[in-house]
């Protein structure tokens, strides 16, 4: 398998994990988060730090990544979801900002802007993951795991309650459901899974630095969900296949980087706006706004 295609597939896996887990939150629970890049970064850094400083193996790193992501998410979800979804948007915006600051400034832990190089490649009980092909295999396993976990959750009584909340939250409360607690659980699960994507990334690129986990990355992950479609759990994976192919295609046009980066952002932003007009399904739940002219 050409190394080039293998690289593409691994990144599709990383972003697939990120987008599928974000979809659980945004598409299935109607809660909007600006912090998924922060979660991605938490997973990457947590995994890298325990591997480099404690010599922890890949699986252990995964667990630490997931737990740290879950914890960070709980920290903002519990106070804000208690009140309203809009509070969570602001809180997630804040988390995103703070986490990037932690990555850039807490140099004793994260080495600041220089980042953490030399992250060891995964060693799964003696089997060293080295070749691009092997990484693809690992990516497939982790993406499938993320998908299956989300699927189990959405196709269950819990998933039924999620749909009820999306359709009519008041009725869900009237039927005895603690809507706040359900939302908090979803936020935590979504972040724990998203952090796994960070772990995979860290052990693949073997280097992490703060620039990969900025706000515009959250926007990109959101674009994957919107483009791929949030009604189906695997929709965002399709989004990943498509959007990750584009920069490669664009490389054939000689555009200076100072223009290419904003242009990419314009594309993602325009995609978000366009899709809200063309295909708001999945995000579109029961009409909650009481005011329509």
């Amino acid at each position, binding site marked *: 398998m050409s190394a080039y295609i293998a690289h593409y597939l691994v990144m599709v896996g990383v972003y697939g994990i990120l987008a599928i887990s974000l979809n659980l939150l945004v598409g299935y629970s109607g809660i909007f988060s600006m912090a998924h890049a922060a979660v991605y970064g938490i997973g990457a850094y947590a995994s890298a730090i325990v591997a480099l400083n404690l010599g922890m193996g890949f699986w252990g790193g995964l667990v630490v990544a997931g737990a740290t992501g879950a914890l960070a998410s709980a920290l903002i979800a519990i106070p804000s979801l208690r009140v309203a979804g809009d509070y969570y948007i602001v809180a997630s915006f804040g988390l995103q900002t703070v986490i990037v600051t932690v990555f850039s400034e807490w140099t004793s832990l994260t080495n600041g802007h220089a980042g953490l190089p030399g992250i060891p490649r995964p060693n799964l009980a003696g089997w060293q993951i080295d070749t691009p092909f092997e990484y693809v295999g690992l990516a497939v396993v982790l993406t499938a795991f993320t998908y299956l*976990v989300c699927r189990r959750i959405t196709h269950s*009584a819990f998933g*039924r309650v999620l*749909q*009820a909340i999306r359709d009519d939250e008041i*009725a869900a409360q009237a039927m*005895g459901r603690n809507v706040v607690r359900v939302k908090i659980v979803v936020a935590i699960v979504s972040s724990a899974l998203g952090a796994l994507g960070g772990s995979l990334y860290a052990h693949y690129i073997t280097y992490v630095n703060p620039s990969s986990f900025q706000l515009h990355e959250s926007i990109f992950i959101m674009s994957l969900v919107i483009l791929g479609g949030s009604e189906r759990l695997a929709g965002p994976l399709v989004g990943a296949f498509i959007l990750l192919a584009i920069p490669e295609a664009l490389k054939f046009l000689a555009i200076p980087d100072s223009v290419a980066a904003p242009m990419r952002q314009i594309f993602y932003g325009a995609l978000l706006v366009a899709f809200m007009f063309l295909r708001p399904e999945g995000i579109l739940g029961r009409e909650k706004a009481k005011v329509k002219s």
Partner: protein
Amino acid sequence: MTPLLSLRDLSKSFGGIQAVRGCSFDVAPGLITGLIGPNGAGKTTVFNMITGFLSPDTGSIRFRGEELRGLAPHQIERRGVARTFQHLRLWQKMTVLENVIVGCRTPLGENVLALFLRAGAVAAEEAVAREHAMQVLEFFGLADRAGELAESLAYPEQKLLSMARIYASPAEVLLLDEPTSGLDSEWLRRLVPIVRRLTESGKTVLLIEHNMELVAELSDEVVFLHQGEVISRGKPAEITGDPALNEIYFGV
């Protein structure tokens, strides 16, 4: 008989308008109590206060002796008081069966850890809930519509579904908000016996009814609310036969 649900001195005002004042009455167990009164009498406001969607300015609401005031709506339902809504609030994009299953208790299936660590027990619980939901649907005559989306049902069937949803829950007290509104006489003929049978399994019903004639058919006891106050209560015949009350109800 000790009352199951007991309202004392409930009052609520909205920006200068006193919607409910000094409202006190009891709901006896195992019976159907009808709450009747002209438009704007405060009936739905009372329901909203009982079920925690509005907080009363004064008063207390006791269920089995426990104070409900201050609890969140989901906590009140868990304690055993469930309600329907005037605007139904069904989950339109879910099937008829799904709407009712949510009424059942499925604590394992709603616990994310249990989903992965106790899959067998989760499956068993789901099967039991499904079975129970189907029985409830049969009771309401909706069993053949189980797999259809709630939004595809005709309005009268949707009303039945909203009742089925709370009937499936373990809640002892069922609050029905205008169960007969918007129904033609043919559907009323089908609905009234079903409502009467709700107490068969020992549940208690408090319903809001608009129609003075229907309230006699539907209820064992009637509470008459006017301008936010309870002005009379008793057997249906006493209430509907009272000329003063009739004048208030049909009058200006």
